[in-house]
């Protein structure tokens, strides 16, 4: 029974939809009170007030700035913004919910959420966005374990997060391949980073639930997926699970499953029969917000450049390739680094190459691996954190290469050196004397030397065209990368021809 291979069998009968939660971390204050938005460094229950604690008699006061940021997200995802916006109460009991209802938006009794009917293109595909809603985050439950007993008799509640602004993005079930979901999420991440509404690197600032169904089966929801990266894994597992069940004629029931990050499986959380009725109704304490006709256009004016526009600009203005541009754009930090470097020294192609092929090697270990495996980098940790290589380094390095003072191999070695010390390339150069050499005498000497030591390889030279390159490598090694590769190769080839 093959759980494997499911990945290769994705077909259009598999339907995947997403529910993405994104905190508006760039706001000053919470959605309905003046408590700070930055709750992360605070002692538990120190970032609270009577309003976000839901004390009796308090009233919500809508943060207008949140409405504006949510509008930007809506426009960036191609949504229509209705003229009248409303908030609804979603009623359910949970200890992390101070009022035992969540203030959110709801479209069943009229379209009043901040965004609706959007579309996002990613790669060569696209997905429809059903709606975007602005809502409040609940608090957090902290499960204590004191190390002796497994689990504890109590659970702590921290309300510091309660009332933080969230936008929830609900897509239509337009995906069939988990790989597409990953690409979509990367694009989404880049968009909200470009909008500046959310710092996706902060833990828990973006979360994604998914729903999956296969032909003939009911819809299964997957919650509790810790990061965007795990969504693809969770979906692959879930699809394989459903297909296996289907193969054995077991009915797939509607249910909610939780992703178990340690065991990398989904586990049943609740069946649809236990599904709650949230008893939505309009929040009486927040009158309908009349945005008016002008709202969307006035927000539109303030919109920053988005990834698609930026990519086009990179291709047109800098002459970069489609692929290189995409890699840069998919991570705003990378794209910003590129533009910063180009400002210092205008050699876009050379610089882009340095960033995409070399610099990423030095990014911190986790993202380094990701970056190598996956051209569309999306890392939720700060890519260049702690790295000593800055824009000025890359600019100078590119300049040294462009002006033929050093060759690429030498430059790579310098880069390694810089990554450790943070010195400028010229300083490293002066210290180690890795000037590129085109001195034919020096190079021929090295070539001669290699020809003497590599007799064995020479025997094969006639039949194997790779021998020349092999010898080139040896010469480069001998000269510590200083030899000009073009001249060297020419010398080697001439010499090889002479042999025959």
């Amino acid at each position, binding site marked *: 029974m093959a759980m494997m291979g499911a990945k290769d069998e994705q077909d259009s009968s598999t339907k995947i939809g997403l529910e993405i939660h994104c905190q508006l971390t760039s706001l000053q204050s919470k959605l309905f009170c003046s408590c700070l938005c930055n709750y992360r460094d605070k002692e538990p229950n120190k970032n609270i007030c009577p309003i976000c604690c839901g004390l*009796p*008699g308090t009233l919500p006061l809508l943060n207008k700035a949140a409405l504006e940021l949510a509008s930007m997200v809506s426009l960036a995802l191609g949504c229509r913004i209705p003229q009248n916006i409303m908030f609804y109460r979603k*009623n359910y*009991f949970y200890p992390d919910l*101070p*009022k035992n209802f969540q203030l959110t938006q709801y479209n069943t009794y009229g379209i009043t959420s901040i965004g609706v009917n959007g579309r996002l293109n990613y790669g060569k595909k696209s997905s429809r966005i059903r709606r975007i809603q602005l809502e409040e985050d609940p608090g957090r439950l902290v499960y204590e374990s004191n190390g002796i007993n497994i689990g504890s008799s109590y659970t702590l509640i921290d309300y510091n997060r309660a009332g933080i602004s969230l936008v929830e993005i609900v897509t239509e079930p337009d995906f069939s391949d988990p790989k597409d979901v990953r690409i979509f999420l990367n694009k989404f991440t880049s968009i909200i980073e470009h909008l500046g509404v959310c710092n996706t690197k902060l833990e828990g600032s973006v979360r994604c639930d998914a729903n999956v169904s296969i032909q003939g089966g009911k819809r299964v929801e997957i919650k509790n997926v810790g990061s965007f990266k795990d969504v693809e894994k969770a979906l692959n597992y879930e699809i394989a699970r459903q297909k296996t069940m289907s193969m054995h004629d077991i009915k797939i029931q509607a249910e909610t499953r939780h992703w178990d990050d340690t065991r990398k499986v989904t586990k049943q959380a609740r069946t649809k029969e236990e599904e709650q*009725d949230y008893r939505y109704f309009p929040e*009486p304490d927040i009158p309908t917000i009349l945005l008016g006709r002008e709202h969307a256009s006035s927000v539109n004016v303030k919109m920053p450049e988005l990834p698609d526009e930026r990519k086009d600009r990179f291709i047109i203005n800098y002459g970069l390739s489609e692929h290189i541009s995409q890699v840069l754009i998919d991570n705003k930090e990378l794209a910003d680094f590129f533009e910063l470097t180009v400002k210092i020294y205008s050699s876009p192609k050379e610089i882009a190459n340095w960033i995409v092929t070399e610099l990423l090697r030095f990014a911190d270990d986790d993202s380094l691996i990701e970056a190598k495996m996956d051209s569309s980098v999306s890392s939720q940790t700060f890519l260049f954190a702690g790295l000593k290589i800055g824009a000025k380094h890359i600019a100078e390095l590119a300049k040294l290469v462009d002006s033929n003072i050093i060759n690429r191999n030498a430059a790579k070695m310098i880069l390694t050196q810089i990554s450790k010390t943070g010195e400028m390339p010229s300083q490293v150069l002066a210290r180690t004397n890795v000037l590129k050499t085109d001195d034919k005498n020096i190079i021929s000497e090295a070539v001669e030397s290699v020809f003497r030591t590599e007799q064995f390889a020479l025997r094969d030279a006639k039949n194997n065209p790779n021998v020349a390159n092999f010898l080139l490598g040896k010469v480069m090694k001998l000269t510590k990368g200083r030899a000009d590769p073009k001249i060297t190769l020419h010398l080697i080839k001439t010499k090889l021809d002479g042999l025959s």
Partner: protein
Amino acid sequence: MSKLYNLSANQVYAGIRARDFTAEEYIFQILERINKVNGKVNALILIDSKGALEKARLVDRKVREDEKRLGALAGIAIGIKDNICTKGLKTTCASKLLEEYVPPYDATAVRRLKDDDAIIIGKLNLDEFAMGSSTEFSSFGPTRNPWNIDCVAGGSSGGSAASVASSECSASLGSDTGGSIRCPASFCSVVGLKPTYGQVSRFGLIPYANSLEQIGPIGKTVSDVVMIMNTIAGADDNDQTIRVTYNTPGYALPSKRKMRIGLVKELTEGADPEISKRIYSAMDLYTSLDCYCEETSINYVEYALASYYTIAMAEASSNLARYDNIRYGFNFSPDGYEWNAYFAKARSNFGDEVKRRIIIGTYILSSAYYGKYYLKAQKVRTMLKRELGLLFKKYDILITPTMPVLPFKIGEKIRDPIKMFMIDIDTVVANLAGIPSISVPAGFSNGLPIGLQIMADEFQEQKLFDAALLFENETYIDRGPEL
């Protein structure tokens, strides 16, 4: 100056300012009076003697040293319904669930009273979470009618009306969701105002049904009510449902005018015959004072009660969800309970009436019935509002009885919830439409008070005051209950 506690708020203010007596003397008398009668009436459920005396001394010092800084309500003893938050003073909603709850902030209305040098004398009894029309559903026991202590004081602001009627304070704040200020004002023969929705900040009012209710004053006279409204009404950044932009409305007194008055036929005819007789004679009185009066109808009145209770219970079921005893509440150790079990156990301490409304409200909001009940109730509300809007093009004010019945015996209706709901028929109209409405004393029948209800279009409080004062000037008898 022997009976200072009997003075109206305006008289107290004038007396202290004129140095006829000190605020401290007056507060001492008030506290003595409370001591004497509260055991019978059970209007106050918390008495802040210490705070009241401190504030009285502060007012007296201001009188001596800096009279100009005296606030507009200087020295007046005011009681606060116990569903309105008072910083540092327990605010219980007469519920076990908030038995130990001390708010960390003042309601906007309370803060404004304090800023204007009023003296908060204590907290007043009510039906649990303001759900009731008789103040019998209180964990502190029922408030009794000062005019006949076997009878109910009305509700839910029973304590607010009874305390003023029995001179335990000179004025009070109540809250009115479906008649909760006007009903007890009528039953206790005092003046009670439900302001226009959005006229007085609800910040700090513990909600029963947010879209319907307002905080409002109860006083011995119309001018006392006006005086307090001038302090509590107006813009507040803490309440987004406030619909005024200026700070104090500045109601004037008196402003005599020839008014066009409509008597709502179905509400007047449907009342106890003794009561409807009084309302018709009120119309005769207005006619004799050069007002143009005629009978009129509100067609949607027949659906008002159903609409009101549907909306109120729906909102209540959600509002009261937060009382899970996790963040605040009463003493009840969570040891040994799983969360759901703890929560259920804690919530079983709600009284029967509150449980009834939570259960019905939950049912109303469930997705299968939302359209059938909640949406329909909202439609009725819209239609009623529209109809009233048209009526107010024709009339300056509408008059009806405040209550269709006289104060009834304690326990008489408590086992018949529907009968209890029915007596709100005259008052819910104003809450559904968001319009202002006042109840003024209109005499007695067998020693039990009758109230005249006056309604005006939204933000037309001034018209209400004009009409109420006109009536009061002609009918006022200086009479108090014997206790």
